[in-house]
């Protein structure tokens, strides 16, 4: 079955290539763009591919949520056009692959409005989430227990947060909620809570805290001052050309036209 699909894809791509000869270069040529990789990038890639397919309805952009590592391997083996990784490429991967940052994931730390804490260091956040610090007074707050709000296992935001604060699998959550909205709602209703959420989904019902003295904002995330952030990377092969459709989608995703969709998906666009 897979073979048939890949043959069909190849045939249609070739056909498109010839058909596209006469057409202007900016319009894309149809076919399929296979993306594979990070589950955290689901929203970003979803928004981008939808926006792209709206304008180029001959092209189908597929997305296979397998994880950053598998996405990178898939590009290397050629089983997808564009790999998606929610981390930068390792040096050994970068020898034959190109990583292009399409968006930045900024994770904001939020507390209840009644909480006097304004700033935490990464170490303090890690200590809180590991359960080493259980009272807000130890980090400059009131004498109250700390309630840790997180996301369900393997949520993209949780994965990002835990990998940046180095607390993978050791967080002592009090609540594991299934959506960002739930996190914001819970933090806004309980003065003891601390939670994390994508910067774009933080509302003014909760208090945003600065990390190591830097308040998260589009600027501080773009210039790298704000620490709890990671890159969303599109991975391509160095020595092979993308198919016309894939190249066209890649160009769209890395152009400023993609910014509004990246913002809509809750991420921060790259500074151009």
């Amino acid at each position: 079955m897979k073979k048939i699909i890949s043959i069909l894809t190849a045939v249609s791509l070739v056909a498109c290539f010839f058909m596209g000869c006469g057409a202007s270069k900016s319009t894309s040529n149809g076919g399929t763009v296979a993306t594979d990789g990070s589950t955290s990038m689901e929203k970003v890639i979803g928004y981008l591919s939808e926006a792209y397919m709206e304008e180029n309805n001959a092209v189908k952009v597929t997305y296979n949520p397998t994880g950053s590592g598998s996405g990178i391997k898939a590009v290397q083996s050629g089983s997808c056009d564009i790999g998606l990784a929610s981390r930068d490429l390792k040096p050994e991967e970068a020898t034959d692959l190109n990583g292009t940052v399409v968006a930045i994931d900024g994770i904001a730390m939020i507390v209840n409005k009644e909480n006097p804490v304004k700033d935490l260091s990464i170490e303090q956040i890690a200590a809180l989430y590991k359960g080493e610090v259980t009272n807000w007074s130890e980090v400059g707050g009131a004498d109250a227990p700390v309630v840790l709000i997180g996301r369900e296992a393997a949520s993209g935001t949780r994965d990002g947060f835990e990998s940046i604060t180095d607390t993978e699998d050791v967080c002592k959550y009090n609540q594991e909620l299934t959506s960002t909205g739930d996190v914001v709602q819970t933090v806004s209703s309980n003065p003891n809570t601390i939670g994390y959420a994508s910067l774009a989904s933080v509302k003014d019902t909760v208090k945003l805290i600065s990390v190591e003295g830097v308040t998260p904002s589009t600027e501080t995330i773009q210039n790298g001052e704000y620490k709890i952030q990671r890159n969303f990377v599109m991975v391509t092969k160095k020595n092979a050309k993308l198919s016309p459709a894939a190249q066209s989608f890649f160009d769209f995703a890395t152009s400023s036209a993609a910014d509004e969709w990246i913002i809509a998906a809750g991420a921060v666009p790259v500074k151009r």
Partner: protein
Amino acid sequence: MSKIKKSSVMLENAMNCIFTVCGFLTIAFVLLITGFLVVSGLPAIKEIGLIDFLFGTTWASTAQTPSYGILPFILTSIYGTCGAIIIGVPIGILCAIFLAKMSNPKLSGIVSGAVDLLSGIPSVVYGLVGMIIIVPLVRETFNLPDGANLFSAIIVLTVMILPSVISVSETAIRSVPKEYEEASLALGATKTETVFNVVAPAAKSGILTSVVLGIGRSIGEAMAVMMVSGNVANMPGMFKSVRFLTTAVASEMSYSSGLQREALFSIALVIFIFIMLINIGLNLFAKKKER
């Protein structure tokens, strides 16, 4: 004459066929779901081991070294259901007695209208109300750091099982022959004595059915408890954040893969077996009633 008869016979046969097909369709669905759950639920149990799966106390499906023990979920579901039954059944039965015996028809109409409305509210709405009202209330009342725990879930479940407990018990109480009551009253018993010593025992099997229905409803509930229970795979405690069997499946299904996904099917199988046992219990009660 014979022509009309012939066409009516044909119609009769055709309809008969359709009824039979519809009847068997339901059986087919049941068999399909059962078969699917057994087939997709068994591999993970085999791989993890039945004892480790059912009695393991840690669930860490996405950790570096994953472990798949669902005892916390099983106990949470049982505790949550027991709690809801302990609080909800007395309230439900007393409400049913009020509706059937104590109040005037006008008031009865209003109250049973409200009960019907309660049963029609989608569970996500119960969850939302629980999350915004009950969770903070529990936190403040018991002076806890956090209100999302087993107790909040029990309260939400209690409210959710009330409609089925009330309506089934009410029907059972109403169907007790009036003569029983009249005889009791004629012997000089008060109304309360009559209700508790004559009517309620006579409606016993119906009331038990309502309890079993309540158990079924609360053990199968996922959405509402997911929003108020905190959803962490702890061993259950009254004021601890807990995860139910149903929520374990619901919260991880969307991104699971490999053994984790198979283990979720196994959890579904466990729920299914629980519900089956409850249904068998229900049928036993119903049969007793017939005799």
